[in-house]
């Protein structure tokens, strides 16, 4: 079976008064039907730009300059806006981090969900209303019928995000992209919403791309993980392999920086020195080299991905070697 989404060599650049910045640099990844793929990385590493490039939602001087995005075998980058609209919001939808700014404040929740159903599924008004109520119940909105008449600002953060998810699921998409869906929420609400989202994803057989910086969430949700750093995919593995045996020094360091609630008081957090580079498209060789404790001379010219067994990919020239030193 072919992949539902296959991204090859995706390169996105932003042009401003200062020149051109390549924010996403030759990113390759794929998503199979019904699986959850996580893209994890720190802020500014290009993970949101990747998702916006796929959805065709780049603005302010951003443009995809190279590569292809195959959704169900069709290259999305070659489509016109009109053709894209038939897929976007229908077969492929997105959940944003901040539901208050992505919901329209002057329309009720109900009218926003039914609008999307009516446009994409070509259903009658009454029927789409029923569908909307059904989907709101599914995402765990208490008293769905009353919620239909409410405006976004009258709902709490968690309820707003539920409305957002309902809207994204209303057309039973084949792929859903969730960009930091619970970052703005409390842990208890996050746990509820992620559980619900996971159940719905299984029930409807959707594929999901979860973009996050929360490594705990990755462990809970993902089938496969891509680690992104400075605009590049630096490691890709099954979630188990990644957590048990990370092959990139950055991934290993990232896992070691997370404080847990069952830590012993003696544990000292490992920290990565330095900061994520702000402008990274001019860096020669490995982009993590200046923060990497295992850096050697050859790192400064290295570009390619190594492929290990079981689909484990890593962008490090000292793979298998740095662990020993």
């Amino acid at each position: 079976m072919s992949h539902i989404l296959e991204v090859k060599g995706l390169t996105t650049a932003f042009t401003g008064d200062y020149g051109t910045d390549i924010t996403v640099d030759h990113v390759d990844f794929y998503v199979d039907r019904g699986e959850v793929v996580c893209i994890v990385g720190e802020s500014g590493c290009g993970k949101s730009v990747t998702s916006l490039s796929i959805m065709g939602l780049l603005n302010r001087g951003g443009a995809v300059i190279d590569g292809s995005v195959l959704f169900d075998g069709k290259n999305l980058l070659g489509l016109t806006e009109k053709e894209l609209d038939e897929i976007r919001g229908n077969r492929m939808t997105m959940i944003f981090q901040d539901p208050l700014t992505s919901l329209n404040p002057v329309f009720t929740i109900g009218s926003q969900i039914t609008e999307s159903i009516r446009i994409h599924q070509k259903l009658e008004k009454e029927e789409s209303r029923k569908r909307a109520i059904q989907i709101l119940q599914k995402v765990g909105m208490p008293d769905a019928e009353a919620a239909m008449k409410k405006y976004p600002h009258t709902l709490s953060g968690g309820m707003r995000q539920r409305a957002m998810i309902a809207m994204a699921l209303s057309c039973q998409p084949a792929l859903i992209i969730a960009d930091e869906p619970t970052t703005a929420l409390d842990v208890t609400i996050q746990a509820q919403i992620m559980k619900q989202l996971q159940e719905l994803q299984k029930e409807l057989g959707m594929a999901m791309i979860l973009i996050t910086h929360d490594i705990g969430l990755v462990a809970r949700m993902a089938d496969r993980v891509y680690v992104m750093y400075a605009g590049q995919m630096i490691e890709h593995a099954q979630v188990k392999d990644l957590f048990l045996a990370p092959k990139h020094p950055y991934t290993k360091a990232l896992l070691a920086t997370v404080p847990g609630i069952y830590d012993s008081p003696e544990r000292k957090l490992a920290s990565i020195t330095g900061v994520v580079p702000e402008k990274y498209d001019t860096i020669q060789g490995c982009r993590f080299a200046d923060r990497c404790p295992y850096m050697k001379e050859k790192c400064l010219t290295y570009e390619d991905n190594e492929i290990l067994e079981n689909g484990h990919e890593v962008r490090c020239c000292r793979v298998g070697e740095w662990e020993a030193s």
Partner: protein
Amino acid sequence: MSNKIQAKEPLIVVENMKKYYPIKGGIIPHVTGYIKAVDGVSFTIHEGETLGLVGESGCGKSTLGRQLVGLEKPEEGCIRYAGRELTGMSEKELRKVRTELQMVFQDSHSSLNPRKHIYEILAQPMLYHHIATKATIQRELERLLDMVGLPKSVLERYPHEFSGGQRQRIGIAKALSLKPRLLICDEPVSALDVSIQAQILNLLRELQQELHLTCLFIGHDLGAVNYVSDRIAVMYSGKIVEVAPAKQLFQNPTHPYTKTLCNAVPVLQIGSGKPETLL
């Protein structure tokens, strides 16, 4: 760590503290009710101890922190600091005591004056409170920057020139400049990336040990709070529902809310506590 908690009078005693915010409504605006942000909270912090304060957003944990340094006036209740009542003090007395109670804010961008150099931001309070004189200020500043791991070249730069992590280091330096005994950290790492978060948490822990600071660490990330705290208090809708030593709280939570909280945290440590929730 338990040897730090001694039987003598705690540094901070908070008794039955309350803070209500009025809700206004109606055609002719009048007070229709109150939001009980802090509703009868009591706790103590001993010298040299770090108390973590966790809870969901809107439960009143920040208000509580602001009350301790006098940024909010409590409705009712009292705060005793080193045996002296803070709540009944005059402005003049309070100003003196406040140098010993300092705060690190979540948003280092809005808590540093954008029009001043770091030199001015750090030096002015020290000169005003006679912590340093014109002659010694340069040496004092360098010592301070060294403590938080910044080069001395930062002094002639402005806050916007720094990354979030560096700005938070400046925020910490600013809080430490008046040689406080109690440091209140209100979500100091929640705006930072994980790799930077670890740097700041490590810095805070080192400083605590080095300077023998007493801390109130407010946060919603249970892992981070656990990392720096000796004891943790759990707050829920304006009340403290559970206080326990850090380790004990997460291993054996007793209050239902604490249990929910513990179960909600995604766990990834391999071979620790709860392996079944991993993967």
